[in-house]
């Protein structure tokens, strides 16, 4: 009986927190579309998420592209199909690795920072102070972050795609000794609009997940420094898992026929 009790309380707890998150998300989305809008706050978030994430996303992308070219060469060399490397690099970067790796890196960089900032504002009563100044914290803190995440992640992924493919080109041409013109031609032949677009849609969804988890965990944090620390950890863990989970779901929606 104790086991059943444990399972029951676990399931109830899970449903309860899922419900809270969904209600929070619904209310946050509502605030994104209803005035007043805080443009300065939005501008700051756009720069913070988009511009300041460029180095970390770019570095991740270039090494991923390089290692992809190197790895697929060891695989494909046996079948003397070296031209396939360009295809492998461009398809896996645009469809999968660009959005997923950018999403994971931004989750670590931005999601955690949001949870820490909003969590600290919660425990130091700064969120209450917003309310006393007739400013809805959902509108002032949460809505600009959600909008910025949904808008900026696809742009970051465009950059990651280009840099990733370039990384593959570097390794293919300078290390494996391919003909640059042939490699580029193969790359462009393999580049499909739907691959890139599906990657960008994924990026938008990931941007929503990251900012939502950061804001939610920060907003609901309790109990001082320890609570803020827990909120930060929860954000990275839950955002990362949700990104991988939704990556599968979206791939299924786009490509499984």
């Amino acid at each position, binding site marked *: 009986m104790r086991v059943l009790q444990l399972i029951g309380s676990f399931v109830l707890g899970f449903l309860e927190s899922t419900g809270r998150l969904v209600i929070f998300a619904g209310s946050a989305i509502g605030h994104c579309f209803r005035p007043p809008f805080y443009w300065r706050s939005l501008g700051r978030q756009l720069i913070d998420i988009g511009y300041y994430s460029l180095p970390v996303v770019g570095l991740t992308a270039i090494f991923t592209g390089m290692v992809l070219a190197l790895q697929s060469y060891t695989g494909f060399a046996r079948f003397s199909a070296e031209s396939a490397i360009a295809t492998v690099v461009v398809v896996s970067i645009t469809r999968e690795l660009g959005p997923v790796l950018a999403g994971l890196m931004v989750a670590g960089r931005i999601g955690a920072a949001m949870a820490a900032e909003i969590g600290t504002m919660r425990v130091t*009563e700064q969120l209450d*102070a917003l309310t*006393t100044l007739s400013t809805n914290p959902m509108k002032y803190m949460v809505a600009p972050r959600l909008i910025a995440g949904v808008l900026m992640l696809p742009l970051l992924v465009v950059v990651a795609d280009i840099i990733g493919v370039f990384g593959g080109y570097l390794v293919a041409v300078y290390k494996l000794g391919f003909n640059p013109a042939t490699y580029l031609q193969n790359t462009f032949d393999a580049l499909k609009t739907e691959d890139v677009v599906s990657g960008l849609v994924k990026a938008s969804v990931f941007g929503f997940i990251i900012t939502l988890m950061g804001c939610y965990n920060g907003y609901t944090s309790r109990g001082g420094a320890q609570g803020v620390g827990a909120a930060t950890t929860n954000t990275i863990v839950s955002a990362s898992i949700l990104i991988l989970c939704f990556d599968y779901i979206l791939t299924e929606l786009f490509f499984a026929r």
Partner: protein
Amino acid sequence: MTDKAPPKIRIGGLYKAFGTKRVLDNLDLDVGDGESLVVIGGSGSGKSVLLKCILGLLRADAGSITVDGEEVMGSPPEKREAINRKFGMLLQGSALFDSLPVWENVAFGLLAGKLMDRKSAREVAISKLAQVGLGPDVAMLSPSELSGGMQKRVGLARAIAADPEIILFDEPTTGLDPIMADVINNLIIETTREVGATALSITHDMASARKIAHRIAMLYQGKIIWAGPVSEITRSGDERVDQFIHGRADGPIQMAVRA
């Protein structure tokens, strides 16, 4: 202050519980227009919860709160926000926004409410800072560069920036040395009188309560057990009030030393 004027804030039968713990239990309280009422009570007596219920930061379980005769409890968010515009509040830890410079903190309500452009909001901020005894050189500093007393002053300037009709003070002197506490008390008296605002404060600092209050009410076990003019508090005839204002450990109020 006259008995005939309708109360600015009327609280009736307010009830709030956290789990099984009753924090506010059928609480009644009136605050008159232009009056300064101080609610005293021990730590954990529910003073902060009372203020948070009035502002809607916490939802009370039952009862009624009216501001200028308008019911606040259960009113839709837009109406709630409109009523909240009448309020200014000085929070216990000042709760300044550490991402913004001092002047933007003070002008926050004006800027966020789109009441004026940044240039004139900044002028208002500097004049409000002057009102609490801070020079214009403070305006560009970050809140973290200020001492606790100065942060309180900035918090006060922020609370009065939009010329509110009602100002709430959450333990305004806690954590300050006695001299700075008195400076803040004087500023509270000046700033509320200057704008003709109604003030509702909560504190456990009796010196502060005596100084800023027209009327004192004591909160104990979720109820107002005594309320009256500040001059009559020593003659309340209630042992619990006497114990509190004299700060004695022995008496009818037994603090839970061990949880």
